[in-house]
């Protein structure tokens, strides 16, 4: 562990960067260290991606960061072949809903190749998917598609919520011998934090308690984390002390951290943007109910998107989990039984 810089004298390594820059840096560092790391996708080259996450990488690494024909199934299948051939491809899907054409390649191959071949063929590849809403995007640009992937055995799924995690989880994803889906919090691409990227972080599979609290636990991930933290801030003023768990990784799920957090408060709200029905949030609620049944003082509540197609920009504010909606859920946790 790097020693903590002493207060008042910020380490020169501490810098203020955005999630986008952190992701970019992760790829750049990985590409510098390992010439087998290649990036492919639509507009990832000269343009640097429609969100500029791959900005400058083609300039620095040439065809190792390359534009493909416009065909997501092709991109995914091509990356599978590249990985079989000894490279470590990073695939960028331009938007969540535009990964759907690649669904067969993901579900029937990416997720299964290691298992089909008894571990003889591994697929070290990364699939980056900008997910979620709140950016005023029109239809097909704001889906929260993580549940399709978390339901598919063989896929590791991470969802960073801040620059440091974005950097480290993407580095870990690139280093993984297995395919990893990185759900990138689109709305947070431009959000900044002070980070020291040289300091290690918990790896894939570790949740983080990002706020301590004793009254109830909010379990969330990705771009819902700041909303949950804000809700906790408001609740504090209203006299309730909320704990916030940032899952960081959806698969494999960190049961240990979540269950001990829940046990400590006995009340739980799960927050996610995706439509709630049959979702990853359902899984969290079901697991908590199954494993912490006797610690629970109230039913697990879910604050998720409604079970509707993602709304048009002018109405999306009604769909997304808000501070108020989270607080309503917290209010409903049967405090009268205390």
């Amino acid at each position, binding site marked *: 562990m790097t020693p903590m810089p002493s207060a008042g004298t910020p380490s020169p390594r501490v810098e203020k960067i955005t999630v986008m820059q952190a992701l970019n840096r992760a790829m750049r560092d990985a590409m510098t260290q390992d010439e087998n790391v290649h990036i492919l996708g*639509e*507009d990832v*080259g*000269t*343009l*640097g991606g*429609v969100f500029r996450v791959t900005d400058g990488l083609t300039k620095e690494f040439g065809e190792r960061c390359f*534009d*493909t*024909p*416009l*065909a*997501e*199934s*092709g991109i995914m299948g091509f990356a599978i072949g590249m990985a079989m051939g000894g490279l470590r491809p990073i695939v960028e899907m331009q938007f969540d*809903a*535009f990964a*759907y*054409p690649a669904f067969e390649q993901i579900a029937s191959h990416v997720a299964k190749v290691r298992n089909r071949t008894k571990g003889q063929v591994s697929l070290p590849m990364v699939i980056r998917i900008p997910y979620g809403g709140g950016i*005023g*995007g*029109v*239809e*097909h*640009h704001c889906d929260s598609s993580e549940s399709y992937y978390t339901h598919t055995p063989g896929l590791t799924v991470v969802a960073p919520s801040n620059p440091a995690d974005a950097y480290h989880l993407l580095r870990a994803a690139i280093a993984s011998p297995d395919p990893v889906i990185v759900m990138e919090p689109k709305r947070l691409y431009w959000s900044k934090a002070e980070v020291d990227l040289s300091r290690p972080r918990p790896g894939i599979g570790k949740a983080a308690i990002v706020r301590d609290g004793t009254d109830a636990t909010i379990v969330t991930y990705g771009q819902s984390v700041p909303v949950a933290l804000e809700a906790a801030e408001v609740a504090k003023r209203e006299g309730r002390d909320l704990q916030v768990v940032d899952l960081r990784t959806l698969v494999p799920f960190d049961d240990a951290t979540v269950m001990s957090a829940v046990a400590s408060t006995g009340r739980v709200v799960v927050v996610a943007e995706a439509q709630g*029905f049959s979702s990853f949030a359902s899984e969290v609620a079901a697991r908590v109910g199954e494993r912490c049944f006797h610690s629970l003082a109230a039913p697990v509540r879910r604050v998720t998107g*409604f*079970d*509707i*197609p993602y*709304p*048009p*920009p*002018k*109405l999306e504010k*009604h*769909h997304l989990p808000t501070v*108020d*909606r989270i607080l*309503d859920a917290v209010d409903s946790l049967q405090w009268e039984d205390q």
Partner: protein
Amino acid sequence: MTPRTPRAKATSASAQPSYDTESATLLPTATPIQLVDAEGNPSTAETGNLPLPDDAALVRAHELMVMGRRFNDQAGALVRQGRLAVYPSSHGQEACQVAAAMVLGDQDWLFPTYRDTVAAVSMGVDPVQILLLLAGDWHAGYDPYEFRCAPTATPLATQLVHAAGLAYAAKVKGEDKVVVAMCGDGATSEGDFHEALNFAAVFKCPVIFLIQNNEFAISVPLSRQTAAPSLAAKGVGYGMPGKRVDGNDVAALLAVMGEAADRARRGDGPTLIEAHTYRMQAHTNADDATRYRTAEEVEPWVARDPITRSEAHLRSRGLLDDAAVADLKQRAEEMAAEMRLGIGKDRDLDPAELFEHVFAKPTPQLLEQRAQLLDELAREEATK
């Protein structure tokens, strides 16, 4: 409806499609078909033996292009004013879009993409309604059945298969319906492009696939999209004729599209048309084209502008004069004013509508969720 007989069983090895002929005849011409050159004069290039469309059609096309250009400009302005979130401009591609709409009759359908709003407007779709998607009000702002115009498609190439399916439905119902399905050069790389063309050809659907090859898919140039000698050359792989046409020559477009529409109406099946044009502006206002192309690259295409060309042509033939131009400009300004008014207007959006159209009848779950939202809004209102 004529009852259909079950298809014959495959009978023998000779039931194979005939390999021996055709291939070459399905290939496009070596250069794009052009009837009017960039200066507005009769073309001396490849004409595909097609006659010039009649005067009325050319004048009408010109009018629609001028309206289309004004539509593009106004939509761009609305973006700059923050009234629209985004706009994919078809500036420079108006000839393709107008021709696509003009070859269609009262029964016929258009399947446009996000960039084909000018085609949709040329079909009669209300200019304000079609922008509601981009204004953020709702996804499709118009009634597709009213205008026989499918919602503008964003997931690339997916709409091409729908177009083939709708054409098939028309065919089995014995309706006289032709469908134009539009896509860009980039979209030709998608699997759905392939599947759409194949289905259309196998079932001889009355559909015309119009590729607007504007040389870019966002930042990616055509050379990264395909190594094919032309996009139109893809037709032969499906057994359908491929045609190359100058995408900035509305006369040629009308002629080539018209021929394909006749073929479809005769029951002879689909045609693939590649219109070679150019995306004069960035992909959308959100895009920064300077990252991947220079002003010098765009420059030569200014001189090939479809509207300048058409105006020169019509004037030289006495089909357009200053008065007509002024009148047209006036009508275009009126439309632009309506757009500003329509889009600028505050529209009441009902949050409850989020739950209304997911199913024909909202599920119990959606009713609960709607009640939750309405309750929240009521409480919010109360605390105001």
